[in-house]
């Protein structure tokens, strides 16, 4: 397609008023509004992490008090999970790309989409309000009876904030499900869909099926907190472990809400930057669904030591291993896709390679934790902290950044500085490993998580970790700068800068308000690189 002249009307320049943004029902604009919101939340969460990492660089607690420390990591967890990572890929990239990728004019329910953003902002606002009025010190897991009875912080408002935000997630999931079912362009069959769309479909299933349980769980917590009636209160015969079951029924599948969309992004990037249809397309697609479904049966691996029955522990451990198989399938297929392909070393591909390495470490240490005999020692130590940062920061965030770079020209119509992008990808990779690799060792040595002071012999490793966190922080700061810079000074982006095969690359960058000027008819599968040459390897 031809490069569009600046005069063309696109979704960004069609109306400049604030009102036109705040009341927009255009999925692309809503995606951008999410982008702004989650970036702010990420910076808030990251600054908290930086603060408590500083605190941890000495063995004795001296920078902040224990109370403050507890509030910092709690809000770090809450903000990063509920307000950054869960909405990041689906609500930012998913919102922008999904309708384009299936040839639709918008999502099925555009007004609901906007409502979902407002719900998100209200929930986020309440949570930040809690941060300003004294904080929250329960840990992001809100375990009772500490949260319901003993905590003196504003658990009630925080629970309400999370409750409200849950609905944003539910609405997004519902919207995507219907969009994928009912809005595909003619010819876009299921087996022709890009893998990102498959991943979003699997994610949406989890959002719809799991999030309501979180909603009712925190609602009950709020009610117990506000009125003093007993729901989980052991003094009345209630069961604190019930709370944990209900919480993890959501929160384990929620970790797949985070990773699946990122895996979808990786599939897109591997295909484009290797110019290759993803090896074993149908297996990669099916594995997304498999992860979503099996992911519902493993939540008890967070309760191995909660005094859950030994039998339940064994069942949950077994199923946790099963859920690793589809992840393995994906990993191997991505690697195989690179074989005899044409690998471009552009920055999104660097993020892909970072993702692969870090996700592997994170996933494999997840398997370590799923092993009953080992979790006894590792549970609630820094080993767990390192595990989930490897997946959530090393995996999901890498995928998110990769995807953001990949679609940035489409979203903004500008190219960013490739050199800086490479520098930041490298910094993030190095800083990340420096931050979290020592934590595996600390964890195995026995350092419990959520500790603001620790025995002095662990200081060296902690200092390394804190140092890494600063490198990491710089690594994240650089993209913020050069991406903003590109808005004004970047080269105008062509319609298809990477040679991608998705429908989104067939239209102008940035797209027009209704996406497709001519009716779309799909005649071939995703990733139709190079005709001929259908060999077997």
């Amino acid at each position, binding site marked *: 397609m031809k490069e569009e002249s600046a005069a063309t009307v696109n979704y960004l320049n069609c109306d400049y008023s604030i009102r036109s943004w705040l009341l927009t029902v255009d999925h692309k604009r809503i995606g951008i509004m999410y982008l702004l919101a989650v970036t702010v939340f990420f910076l808030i969460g990251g600054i908290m992490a930086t603060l408590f990492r500083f605190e941890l660089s000495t063995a004795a607690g001296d920078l902040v008090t224990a109370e403050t420390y507890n509030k910092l990591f709690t809000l770090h967890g809450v903000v990063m999970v509920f307000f950054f990572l869960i909405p990041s890929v689906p609500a930012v990239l998913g919102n922008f790309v999904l309708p384009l990728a299936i040839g639709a004019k918008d999502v099925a329910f555009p007004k609901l989409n906007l409502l979902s953003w407002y719900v998100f902002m209200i929930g986020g606002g309440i949570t930040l309000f809690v941060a300003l009025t004294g904080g929250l010190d329960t840990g992001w897991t809100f375990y009772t009876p500490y949260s319901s009875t003993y905590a003196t912080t504003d658990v009630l408002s925080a629970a309400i904030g999370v409750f409200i935000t849950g609905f944003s997630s539910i609405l997004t999931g519902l919207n995507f499900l219907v969009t994928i079912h009912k809005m595909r362009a003619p010819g876009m069959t299921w087996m022709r869909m890009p893998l990102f769309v498959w991943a979003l479909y699997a994610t949406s299933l989890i959002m719809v099926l799991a999030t*309501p349980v979180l909603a*009712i769980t925190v609602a009950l917590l709020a009610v117990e907190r506000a*009125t*003093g009636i*007993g729901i989980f209160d052991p003094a*009345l*015969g*209630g069961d604190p472990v019930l709370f944990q*079951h*209900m919480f993890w029924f959501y929160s384990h599948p929620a970790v797949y809400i985070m990773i699946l969309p990122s895996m979808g992004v990786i599939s897109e990037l591997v295909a484009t930057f290797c110019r290759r249809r993803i090896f074993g397309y149908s297996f990669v697609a099916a594995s997304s669904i498999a992860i979503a479904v099996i992911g519902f049966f493993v939540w008890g691996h967070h309760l191995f030591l909660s005094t859950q029955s030994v039998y339940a522990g064994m069942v949950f451990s077994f199923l946790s291993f099963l859920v690793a198989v589809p992840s393995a399938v994906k990993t191997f297929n991505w690697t195989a896709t690179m074989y005899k392909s044409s690998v471009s070393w552009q920055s999104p591909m660097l993020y892909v390679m970072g993702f692969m390495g870090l996700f592997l470490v994170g996933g494999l240490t997840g398997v370590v934790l799923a092993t009953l005999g080992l979790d006894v020692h590792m549970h609630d130590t820094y080993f767990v902290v390192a595990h989930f940062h490897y997946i959530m920061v090393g995996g999901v965030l890498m995928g998110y950044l990769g995807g953001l770079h990949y679609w940035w020209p489409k979203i903004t119509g500008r190219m960013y500085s490739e050199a800086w992008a490479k520098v930041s990808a490298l910094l993030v990779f190095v800083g990340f490993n420096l931050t979290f690799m020592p934590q595996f060792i600390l964890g195995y040595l026995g350092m419990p998580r959520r500790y603001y002071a620790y025995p002095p012999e662990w200081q060296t490793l902690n200092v390394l970790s804190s140092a890494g966190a600063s490198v990491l922080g710089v690594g994240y700061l650089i993209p913020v700068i050069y991406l903003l810079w590109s808005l004004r000074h970047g080269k105008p982006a062509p319609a298809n800068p990477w040679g991608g095969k998705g429908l989104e690359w067939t239209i102008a960058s940035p797209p027009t308000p209704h996406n497709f000027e001519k009716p779309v008819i799909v005649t071939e599968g995703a990733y139709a690189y190079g005709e001929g040459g259908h060999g077997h390897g």
Partner: protein
Amino acid sequence: MAESRNPLAHHFDSLEQQYAAAKLGMWSFLITEVMMFGGLFLGYILYRCRFPEVFAQGSHHLDIKLGAFNTAVLIVSSLTMALAVHAAQEGRKQATLTYLFFTLMLGLTFLGVKVIEYSDKYQHHLIPGARFLWSEGDAGPPQLFYSYYFCMTGLHAIHMVVGAGLLLWLMALTARNRFSPAYYTPIEMVGLYWHFVDIVWIFLFPLLYLIGRH
């Protein structure tokens, strides 16, 4: 007949597609409702297995006649709701309005009875919390029963209130000729919702009111 306003939104190709999307969306939403109430039922089941006698005693303080009456009220309202959809499908505006009105009245009746029941619990100090009084031994587990009783019926009642609002909205739209046999999607969707709320009560009634009566 139908007003000039076009019910087809810009991003759909046909009314058929729009209807199918709405229906699937509504069902997805109902799934979330099932899971949300499910979380409540889960705790209820667990505690009921743990304290069967106490839960039976607790349920004996609930008025089975009022409960059965309310069940019947909701079933009738489900019927009138179904009839309202039926009338809308056939484009009979006046009948649609009448049935919606009956549904609304029945819903309000249900809520009225609930108010009577709640205030009775209040007078007998059966509201969990500091005022809770229980003469038959340890007051802990009975409080759990009443906590669940109020949370479950309370969440259900909130759904009824929302439903009543939706019915009013439908009546306003119907009166303004917004619907036709070609487009009555909102009525059908609210219908689905209303029936779902009825189903929840179909489970709540035996579980809360009818334990160990024999």
